């Protein structure tokens, strides 16, 4: 089998192929680089036989001559070729071979709209990357299902009180996490805009109040964020903590901005970060006490902080025009239903938007189509 003798960079071993394909597709999506792919779904044959693999290699062989072609033999028997630029003749030859070698099987369709039974699917990247990613993910045998997690108890006021007391002295630095927010630069992939500094709530709950779900009672959770804010600001105010820090964002309650802890944090902020720290607020907090919000906004902006309004959804965004709130950024949560609408129909202007929860190529694609400058989520990784 000649194809199996391909150099490693062209055809990684089967056990690495799914990960390698996924990495390539994410990179293509992140950079917006056009690529083409042919996905050969041998696992969908009614009775996949060992010789099918050899037939597939023979069928795909012409495409390996395309520019920057890479072939992936996935663990479940599927195969994919990804290449750059036009290769109509090579693709046509491949299709002919497929028709001959897999006579009787459906021999190929174009695009993600191809019927589920189609043996071969020709995809344009990054637009149709989700289908290729799904194939890579599905090709790996899922691990045996773990025993179902015991249901967690919602936080109650008495436990909240105990937890607040415990948080007064617990070391929270081990729960601190950084999540990148990236700017989308055409043709250059993503660049880090800032890091969201957050606490891992699951780990915190597992350590301090095992068995409890901190977020199940939403208003008690919001109350808990008061003390988490104070501890987070104290963490950041510690000597040397901010010396090497990159620009970052903190989600804070308005009451926290007006607390002595914030004044200490503000005093500890090095001048090189002044004007590069984002404070993220929630709409319910803004509306709970608008005079406090307006005061905090004026104060924070006078001290050079950028303000972000988070928690916006397709339903909520039209109710919060950016201008009256004086926000530098509006964070819109990705939802597949957004794909059928546009920012202008939601009354939003792209230049202030951060699209959060970007977990698919479709999300990233929509962000690019709307000229959204900033994204965060599993698909937001700085180059």
């Amino acid at each position, binding site marked *: 089998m000649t194809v199996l003798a391909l150099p490693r960079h062209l055809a990684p071993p089967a056990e690495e192929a799914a990960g390698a394909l996924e990495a390539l597709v994410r990179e293509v999506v992140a950079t917006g680089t056009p690529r083409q792919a042919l996905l050969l779904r041998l696992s969908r044959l009614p009775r996949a036989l060992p010789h099918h693999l050899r037939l597939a290699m023979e069928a795909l062989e012409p495409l390996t001559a395309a520019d920057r072609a890479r072939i992936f033999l996935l663990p479940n028997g599927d195969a994919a070729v990804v290449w750059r630029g036009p290769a109509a003749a090579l693709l046509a030859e491949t299709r002919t071979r497929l028709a001959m070698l897999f006579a009787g099987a459906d021999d190929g369709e174009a695009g993600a709209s191809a019927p589920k039974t189609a043996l071969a699917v020709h995809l344009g990247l990054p637009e149709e990357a989700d289908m290729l990613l799904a194939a890579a993910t599905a090709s790996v045998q899922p691990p045996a299902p773990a025993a179902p997690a015991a249901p967690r108890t919602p936080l109650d006021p008495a436990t909240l009180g105990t937890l607040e007391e415990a948080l007064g002295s617990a070391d929270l630095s081990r729960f601190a996490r950084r999540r990148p927010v990236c700017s989308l630069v055409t043709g250059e992939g993503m660049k880090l805009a800032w890091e969201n500094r957050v606490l891992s709530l699951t780990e915190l709950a597992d350590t301090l109040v095992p068995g409890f779900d901190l977020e199940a009672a939403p208003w008690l959770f919001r109350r808990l964020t008061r*003390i988490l804010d104070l501890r987070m600001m104290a963490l950041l105010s510690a000597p040397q903590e901010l010396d090497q820090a990159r620009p970052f964002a903190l989600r804070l309650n308005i009451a926290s901005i007006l607390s002595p802890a914030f004044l200490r944090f503000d005093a500890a902020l090095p001048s090189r970060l002044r004007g590069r720290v984002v404070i993220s607020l929630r709409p319910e907090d*803004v509306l709970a006490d608008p005079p406090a919000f307006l005061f905090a906004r004026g104060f924070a902006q006078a001290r050079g902080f950028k303000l972000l309004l988070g928690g916006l959804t397709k339903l909520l965004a039209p109710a919060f025009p950016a201008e009256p709130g004086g926000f530098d950024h509006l964070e819109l949560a990705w939802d597949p239903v957004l794909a059928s609408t546009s920012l202008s129909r939601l009354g939003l202007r792209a230049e202030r938007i951060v699209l959060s929860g970007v977990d698919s190529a479709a999300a990233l694609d929509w962000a690019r189509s709307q000229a959204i400058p900033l994204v965060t989520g599993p698909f937001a990784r700085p180059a």
Partner: protein
Amino acid sequence: MSLALTAAPARPVPLPTRARRGARAGELLLADVLEREARAPQGRIAVVVRLSRLPPPGPRPYHRRVARALLEDCAQRHGGQVLQLSAGDLVLLAPAPPTQLADPSGSPMALPGLITRLLHMDEQGAEPAAFAVTLAEGAARLQALLEDTSAPHVEEEAVARPRNPFAGRLSPGFAPLAPDAVSRLLSGSMAELLQRRAVARLPGRGEPAALMHTVHQMLAVDSAQLAARLAHRPDGTAQAGSDLPHDPWLSRHIEAELGRAVLALLRQAWGSGTPADAAPRPRVPPVLLRLPLAVLAGAEFAAFAALPHGASKPAIAIAIAEAAADATAFADVRAMLREAGMMLVLDGLTHHALVLARPEVLEPDFVALAWSTALPRLADARREEVAEAVARIGPARLVLTGADSEPALRWGRALGIQLFQGTHVDAMLAATRQLSCPHATVCGLRACTQRAIAATAVGRAGCARPDLLDGLGVAGMLLQSSTHQHAARGLT
């Protein structure tokens, strides 16, 4: 450069009466510095923040904290010192800044503008909250501060709080929740916490006053009662957690607990009757309940909604902060209420919120706007924004809540608002009742108003014509029977 404040003055400083009485360090130091400047001018300046002159409800702790931080930051960078006077005003004494500063925004002279913007955001003709003067030219103005006895004495913010072991390490204004605070709140009689507040339609210009009528009876938790219940242990001692209603998030959680209890109370009161028994209720104004989304989406509300309400379908108020926290849940509840034929009122909006958000996008039937004495005094630009928002929503869909005075009604009616709620409305309704009540001279307006507000039989005691106390009848119609009183106690 720091100010030389330690050397003794050449002659005794004539301290004004107030400063002598209070013997406060701030007044003493300011008097000292003024005296020295008079003898040997050094061109120093003072930036004064008149927190004592903020309009009601006056400065909140964070106003003082942040203003002080801004002054101290400036003092640190330019040299100087911050004093607090006993009325709460803050004074920064600093050397005069150079006329050409690399960053003029960091100059002490820029502080009054910033602080005034922060403190007086939208009131017309308000006295500037801060000003800067040279000590030489502003001596008389500063001397007047020392002699000002019109403002109340203000203590500096307490750093430590009793019963709060983390006060020093955390933050003033934040105390861990007392573990029993919420359960204690919910441990008393629910009916005693409730009030019935009328939402009335006021006649338009030229229409007879008799057209004023109650369109909804809002069943609301009396915040004073709630605070009283929290502030004291059964043994009468004050305790931590009494600031609980001031925490917006805990308040929401408590509202959910109270809402479930109120629904249970109403189901007990109304659910025991057959549809025929419920027949008189269409004659009384429908009840208006403020409930959190979590309660509206739950089984308790479904059971309440299934009661035979007849033509008096309850109306439901939802705080806009609830809708903002979970717009999807809000949309689901809105659809459910529409299907049940119940009106949706979006409430919890101040005039600031009306400008920051667009409540009409959330498609409520009514929007409740909280009255503020600042409304008639808004600066031109802000007044126009509020008027635009009212026009956008539609004045016929607005309810002005907390209307406690004639100016409130005047302001609302000038914008075309017809629905009002508040103590002034309660008093007007009582006055109307008394016109046709033969016992009016015995009771008086105040007693009649209070009885109409009361939600328990005890609160209505003494009224000889309870039929005139138009309303829901939780107390008057249903809870008077021993069964229902028992039901109310059952919630305790």
